[in-house]
């Protein structure tokens, strides 16, 4: 078991509050690294915002990576990479 303080069966809501958002652009915020969100102020009545615990965001992100891994495996047994980072910094 990891030593990050996780204890099965123990849930404390205050430990699961997402970090405060950082503004990325005029229209986008970020609460978790590389997890971008459209500014909730722009979402209006059509996309009601919910109070999502941090573990649920992490679960969705992990599921996304699982999905991408699955797609890689659909038609090929491995991935060849150029072995290079980006030519430019963002």
């Amino acid at each position, binding site marked *: 078991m990891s030593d990050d303080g996780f204890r099965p069966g123990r849930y404390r809501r205050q430990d699961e509050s997402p970090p405060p958002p950082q503004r*990325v*652009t005029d*229209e*986008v915020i970020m609460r978790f690294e*590389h*997890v*971008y969100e*459209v500014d909730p102020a*722009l*979402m*209006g009545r*059509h*996309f009601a915002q919910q109070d999502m615990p941090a573990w649920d965001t992490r679960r969705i992100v992990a599921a996304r990576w699982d*999905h*991408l*891994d699955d*797609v*890689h495996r*659909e*038609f*090929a*047994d*491995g*991935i*060849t*990479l*150029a*072995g*290079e*980072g*980006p*030519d*430019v*910094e*963002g």
Partner: protein
Amino acid sequence: MTLAATTIDEGVLDELRAILGEDGAVLTGAAARLNRARVPAPFPVHRWAQYVPDVVVLPRSAQQVSEIIKLANRQRIPVVPRAGGTGLADGAVPLRGGILLDVKRMDQIKEIDLADRTVTVGPGINMQTLNRRLKPHGVMYPDDPASYACSLVGGRIGTSGFSLLGARYGHTRDLVISFEIVLPTGEIIEVGDGGARKVRKSSTGYHLKQLFMGHQGTLGVVTEATLELVPRAETEFAAFFLFEDYDTAYRTFGEIARSGLATLAGVVIFDPEKVAYLRRDDEAYLSQPAWVHAVTAAALYGTKVEVQAASKVIMALGRRLGGKYIGDEISSGDWAARHDRYANPLHGRTSDGRVVPMSWHCEDAALPYSQLPAIQREWHAIAARYVSEYEIFDDWGMFAYTNGAHKPWADVLVEIDMGLWEERLDEAGWRAFVSLKREIGQATLAHGGSLTACHGSTREGDAELVPVEMGASWEVVKQIKRTLDPLNILNPGKQMLDEAYTDQETTA
């Protein structure tokens, strides 16, 4: 919405129940009918009830399909075949009610032949499901549309689908070796390249497979297909390159497409409007420098020794005119995200930046490579007029993709993605949408293109341009339709084919 009760009488329903012989195979409830009326593309939701079939049937065999169609001919009831219902035109949308023939129960894998490298399936099987069954055998069926996880083999044949790996492995028409089809009068035939079920190349008779490929449900119901098996690729490679301007990205696209690399599966280009759209909401592009206005990407599949060598060529070509590599992480991740358009909830923006739910309109065409810059400007100019005049549209940008199976160096699949705010749709908005489609189609024809590379010209707006594109051969098309479907039973009202019956009494 008020949904009319089925107009098919109880005697016909009893006959359908007798043909199918099991509970739950003849459905007349509102949910079963409403859910099979539309497809993911924008839909006239304010007139939804006009597109609802009278009854849904779920056959399991070609013989049952044949008996259903013979009954429909006797009673002059339209029949609309439907597979996954994931199409981006209206091939599977009933225009005149009738019997909706859903093939989802015909989803068996009937034979895996590793000696002759074929797999024989029912039309209701999904490619992802099929490939997961094939994987232990070291083979795959490489038909890879954006709808990979949800579309079905029958629909792929019905639309003559486009595969994102088409440059390497071919598109649906190349990957389907032969198929069984129930004709509009109920006869069951097999079509291929000649008459043999597992032969890829023949000079016997007419090549009827290609006549029925892309039939859009107007020439029959596919009940079995024999498909190509290819060796699973040892590895894949994808690289995305960033550009300051569209023209340089376009020329880089052309150089990679003409590279002659046998493992090249596809090349794609995103235009400035697409990059702006992605920069708005997509995690891969939010962090890109402001000077990035276009992207060109390429993917390879094959053995390690081939792909590793070819990847070095791609890296050199991608940078030769000034492209900047986006990096391994985003390249591999973005390539794996190529099916996202069918998985993500869609939203667009109003002119003041508010987020609103929008359905996804994707207008496609096939065009010569040389025409791409001009058509890119013209389509956006058309879209801009409608976006400014109507609050219900949003321009989500354009992309182009290598189109030729095994021959990626020439014509391109071109698509413009647009959002349409269906909640605000009324008849004026729908007429504007149809007019938008028609203008885009007219521009395509003016540049020597074909109205559609993969979706089919089955919706209002471009359907009426089909005779224009077909020219003198339109007369032959009408004769074929009338000969095979003398009462216009199969999917009536599509692609202007009603013109084949102007002097006859039909279901229409």
